[in-house]
């Protein structure tokens, strides 16, 4: 093989229907016998596995093209049908044509003088609503015509055409045989076909009645050999042999002059087999089955639906040079790196061309061989021949290796790889990372990139792809690298930021930590910062000062913390305030966003890396955990919470009494019962919130509180539920209202409307739930599970529809937004042409520019 390429591009695809002439013309063989193999297991001539149709056995050669297995693409054959049958897929169109044309002269039932008028009407309809609307319009035009029972051309009476499903036509009372049908359709002139919107060059109506049928090549329906040595044929082959068998019998019976009844029966059977060959899910027809009762997968089933050819094989491709395994976190990796296990690195390769300058390096890789890590697996000689590197071939290859050779070497640190997690709902679901080959068996990633991938480490698996050409690598690096994906095009803010410990760590560090300068220095060293000139020379340095070392010296920023304090950074120093989610968190981190805006992705990424690591380090130094005593309240507080709940319960009791006595004043538009529910819900929720407030007012800063305040994890409500009171369990936005007759559990009295009987949990998670409370809790838990389970497929389908309809909408060079056919959808994207990912949520901050320039 030489290094020659022929690049061919497909310009267009035209659709049409095969005429009998074409079918017989391109056929490599005429198939006449249902037998497949002779006694030796060799394909029978004129059988369905005829080797003129292509080969599927290694060793055999195709009689048509001489190719071997995998070289020969396969060739069509044909069979001649003893009697014509209808192609089921065209039945609607045939019916349409029959009822709109004359049964005698074949003309369309519109008078000549009106044709040109209607043609204009029809062309307009087609343009506006498509070809299907055109056919419906013809029906409407004909229905409007007064003398539709008489042909305007030959004045013959017209009988009504009826289709008896699935495949039998009646004209008036008489059955129309496919032969009759065919001759009727033949009479329709080309010019009238155009009126229907059909293209007479590509389609003649009589072609929908099959007289010959193409036999697909064997390569399209390969048989598989079972372990027992038995052959198992493809479903299509089964179906085709059924057709041939019946066709054969029909031939014989006709030649023997058998009675009409028998012939008609066989004819119907042939029709059945041909119909099910095309589509095995025709209503009113029993599907053809295997001996076991399993339905056969015939042509239609092969194409349609998610598992069909189009969506499974054509729109979805499979790739080489990819890997998939479980993921695990590694905060010491950079955000744009991915840890690849060495087991994978020795199997994924990158082709590297040998030149004078890298020859030595490559020779070393070759001599290491394919098994040990940095080595190589294959060598491609300049003549295109591939050679596997093994212990035996190694010496030989080393000798001949010279510039021009291509070495497929193992994956190395710094190579670029695409990293992906399904479902890929985002463009951020597939980003480019730099490879770090590591020991271990899992793919490693920095926890900060979990968010765009929506990954966690409870067993998630992810995929890795290695781009193989320079062009692909360049594109991946410029467009897909993590730092270039920091800003979401959905809302123009950072999708990647500090999470969890990195947030609470930086929060504690910048708020009130202090440490000896040496310790601070060692921490910064750990991040790779050696220049400590910006760290103050005091004996004890504050966390703010340590953090400020990371920031660029000319960075200014004004923001707010979660609790409302002002954050001020002047010339790279934190002047006041401290870090929390609103500064460095993902999605919310405003400081990150302005860093990105000012310094660009290349500088922001290492900065983010350092901030992340600094947070984790600071937290390690301090020590951080959560334990059950965090949730203990003082006796006094506990009593206060209990009092609030008791009070609420009492109030609910009063409300219920009022309701029973009819004293409850109902809210406008509500019944008394609904009012009661609303009031109770209100009272109980108030009590829960108040309980939570009391618990939080204790003032102890536990670890749980730190996490909630910094925004790292959890919120005040979570803490209140754990420490003070869980509160009302709501089902469908109401109190729990189902179960037994007039009560939720048999443990309660009927019509008990009290808090406890309707799902109020007065305990906290720490103090423990009663069985009843636990049960109600499980009800709400189940509800939310159901909700997610129902929502996922719905939103998935919505996404599929959206992406299918918008996939070819792009921005043209003139700034207009157009679809594939060039139709302008918008003159400028979003009315001003602004890219959301290049601005803060689509807004250019004019005010800030003015202030900066002033």
């Amino acid at each position, binding site marked *: 093989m030489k290094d020659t390429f022929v690049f061919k591009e497909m310009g267009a695809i035209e659709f049409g229907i095969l005429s009998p002439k074409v079918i017989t013309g391109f056929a490599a063989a005429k198939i006449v016998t249902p037998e497949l193999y002779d006694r030796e297991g060799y394909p029978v001539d004129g059988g369905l596995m005829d080797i003129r149709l292509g080969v599927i056995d290694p060793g055999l050669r195709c009689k048509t093209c001489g190719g071997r297995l995998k070289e020969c693409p396969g060739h069509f054959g044909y069979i001649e049908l003893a009697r014509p049958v209808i192609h089921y897929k065209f039945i609607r169109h045939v019916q349409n044509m029959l009822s709109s044309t004359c049964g005698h002269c074949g003309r369309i039932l519109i008078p000549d003088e009106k044709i040109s008028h209607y043609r204009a009407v029809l062309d307009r309809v087609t343009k506006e609503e498509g070809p299907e609307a055109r056919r419906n319009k013809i029906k409407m035009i004909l229905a409007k015509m007064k003398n539709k029972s008489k042909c305007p051309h030959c004045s013959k009476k017209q009988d009504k055409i009826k289709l008896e499903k699935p495949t039998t036509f009646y004209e008036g009372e008489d059955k129309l045989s496919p032969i009759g049908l065919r001759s009727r359709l033949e009479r329709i002139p080309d010019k009238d076909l155009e009126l229907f919107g059909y293209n007479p060059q590509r389609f003649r109506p009589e072609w929908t009645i099959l007289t010959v049928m193409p036999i697909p090549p064997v390569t399209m329906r390969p048989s598989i050999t079972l372990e027992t040595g038995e052959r198992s044929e493809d479903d299509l082959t089964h179906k085709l042999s059924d057709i041939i068998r019946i066709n054969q019998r029909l031939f014989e019976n006709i030649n023997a002059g058998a009675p009409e009844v028998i012939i008609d029966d066989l004819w119907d059977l042939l029709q059945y087999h041909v119909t099910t060959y095309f589509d095995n899910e025709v209503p009113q027809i029993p599907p053809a089955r295997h001996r076991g009762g399993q339905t056969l997968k015939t042509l239609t089933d092969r194409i349609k639906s998610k598992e069909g050819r189009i969506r499974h094989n054509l729109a979805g491709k499979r790739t080489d040079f990819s890997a998939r395994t479980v993921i695990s976190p590694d905060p010491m990796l950079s955000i744009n790196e991915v840890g690849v296990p060495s087991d994978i690195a020795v199997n994924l390769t990158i082709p590297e061309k040998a030149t004078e300058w890298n020859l030595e390096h490559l020779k070393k890789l070759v001599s290491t061989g394919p098994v040990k890590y940095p080595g190589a697996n294959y060598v491609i000689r300049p003549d295109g021949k591939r050679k596997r590197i093994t212990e035996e071939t190694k010496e030989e290859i080393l000798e001949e290796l010279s510039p021009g050779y291509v070495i497929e070497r193992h994956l190395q640190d710094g190579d670029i790889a695409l990293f992906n997690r399904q479902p890929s709902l985002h463009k951020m679901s597939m980003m480019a990372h730099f490879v770090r080959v590591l020991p271990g068996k899992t793919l490693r990633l920095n926890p900060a990139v979990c968010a765009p991938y929506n990954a966690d480490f409870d067993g998630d698996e992810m995929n890795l792809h290695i781009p193989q050409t320079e062009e692909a690598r360049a594109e991946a690096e410029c467009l897909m690298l993590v730092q270039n994906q920091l800003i979401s095009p959905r809302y123009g803010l950072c999708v990647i930021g500090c999470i969890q410990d990195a947030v609470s760590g930086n929060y504690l560090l910048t708020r009130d930590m202090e440490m000896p300068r040496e310790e601070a220095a060692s921490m910064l060293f750990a991040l790779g910062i050696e220049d400590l000139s910006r760290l103050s020379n005091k004996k004890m340095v504050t966390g703010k000062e340590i953090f400020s070392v990371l920031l660029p010296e000319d960075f200014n920023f004004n923001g707010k913390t979660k609790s409302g304090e002002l954050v001020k950074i002047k010339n790279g120093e934190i002047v006041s305030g401290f870090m929390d989610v609103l500064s460095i968190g993902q999605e919310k981190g405003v400081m990150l966003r302005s860093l990105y805006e000012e310094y660009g992705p290349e500088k922001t990424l290492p900065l983010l890396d350092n901030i992340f690591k600094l947070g984790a380090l600071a937290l390690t130094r301090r020590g951080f955990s959560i334990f059950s005593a965090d949730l203990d309240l003082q006796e006094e507080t506990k009593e206060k919470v209990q009092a609030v709940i008791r009070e609420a319960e009492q109030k609910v009791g009063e409300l219920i009494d009022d309701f029973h006595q009819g004293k409850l004043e109902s809210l406008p538009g509500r019944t008394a019962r609904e009012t009661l529910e609303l009031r109770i819900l209100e009272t109980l929720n108030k009590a829960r919130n108040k309980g939570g407030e009391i618990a939080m007012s204790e003032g102890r800063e536990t670890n749980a509180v730190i996490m909630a305040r910094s925004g790292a994890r959890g919120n005040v409500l979570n803490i209140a539920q754990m420490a003070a009171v869980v509160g009302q369990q709501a089902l469908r936005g109401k109190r729990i209202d189902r179960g037994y007759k007039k009560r939720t559990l048999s443990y309660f009295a009927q019509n008990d409307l009290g808090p406890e009987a309707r799902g109020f949990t007065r305990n906290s998670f720490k103090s423990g739930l009663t069985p009843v409370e636990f049960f109600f809790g499980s009800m709400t838990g189940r509800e939310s599970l159901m909700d997610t389970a129902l929502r996922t497929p*719905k939103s998935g389908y919505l996404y599929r529809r959206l*992406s299918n309809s918008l996939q*070819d909408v792009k921005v043209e060079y003139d700034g207009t937004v157009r679809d594939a056919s060039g139709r302008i*959808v918008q003159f400028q994207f*979003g009315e001003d042409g602004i890219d959301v990912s290049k601005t803060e949520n689509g807004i250019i901050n004019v005010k800030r520019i003015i202030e900066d320039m002033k």
Partner: protein
Amino acid sequence: MRKAHEEFIDGYEGKLPLKMINEVKANIPDDITKETLEKIMEQIVSRYNESKVHAGEAIGIITSQSIGEPGTQMTLDTFHFAGVSEMNVTVGLPRIIEIFDARKTISTPLMEVFLKPQYNKPEAVKKVALHLKETKIEETVAEIAINILDQTLTIQLKKNILEGLEMKPSDVSALIKAKVKKLNVKTEGDTIIVTYEGKPEEVKEIYLIKEKIKNIRLRGVKGIRQVLPVKRGEEYVILTAGTNLKDVLEQEEVDAKRTTTNDIYEIREVLGIEAARQAVLNEVDKVIEAQGLNINVRHIMLVADMMCGNGEVKGITRYGVIGEKASVLARASFETPIKHIIDASLIGERDELNSVIENVLINQTVPLGTGLPGLVVKVKGEAKDGKE
């Protein structure tokens, strides 16, 4: 000084979007020199140009991802409206799906009726609301007695309800007379006695008449099932369940400029396609806002423009936007592939392969992003060094 500045800034029309020009005007200090202003404007223009979408950007995919991805975070519930229990609102994912489907009948039609300023008083609002709500005779009737012998209907009215509607029994009888022909209608206090004019007809007929009378609309606008006046800030707004934009807009008291419905088709019929596009935008935005999600308007705009681009509201379905694609293979790869291929072959359709999915199918470069530009190198002369 100020005026000169503004004129100078106006000179940037065409280079900057109007919205930004106005923003500059609002924020520019009075005491600025011309040179700095010039510099500022140049800076803003360059920032604007830097922020523009690149040519070839697959903005459609980005939009669909931006809407599709947070779809999993939306809720499925329908919410009860504050106040009236039968007023539900579809929210969250189901509502989004409903809008993008462009359904002709939506599950919870609603209107927001704004009133002209002179009616912005509690009593007036209540009165308007009452006049909007569709009330049928049935609702005011205590009993309808049929006397088969005399062929008469005796209608007993509920006085308190009638009074609430500010109507008299005679008004009701006048209405009956106007709406159903050939009847004698007599009013006696709270009762209305209906008899045939002329000869008595079949017994069956009288039942039909009874049904007819029950369904006569006494008051209000057709289709408005419920009304609920609420106070928004200083203003009273009437929320209605059921919608009839055309008739409501015709009401004297209604502020037609601000009154809307959530039925996009109705807006298309009454106010035209541009209004429908804005309605799609508003409705989707409302849902997203309520769910606490963050999706930039530009993405919703693109979907809305896609849906309304042809002058009709088309859904994001195989019958709507996707069914209208020029490419056979693009349609076939979405849904019902067989149907599309068969239809294409009859017409002899040609797929020019210029959109995305067809090129994926046949393994060719997709005409988006880096796949869009083509480069042709013009080779000048022969290679000089004698080598090939």
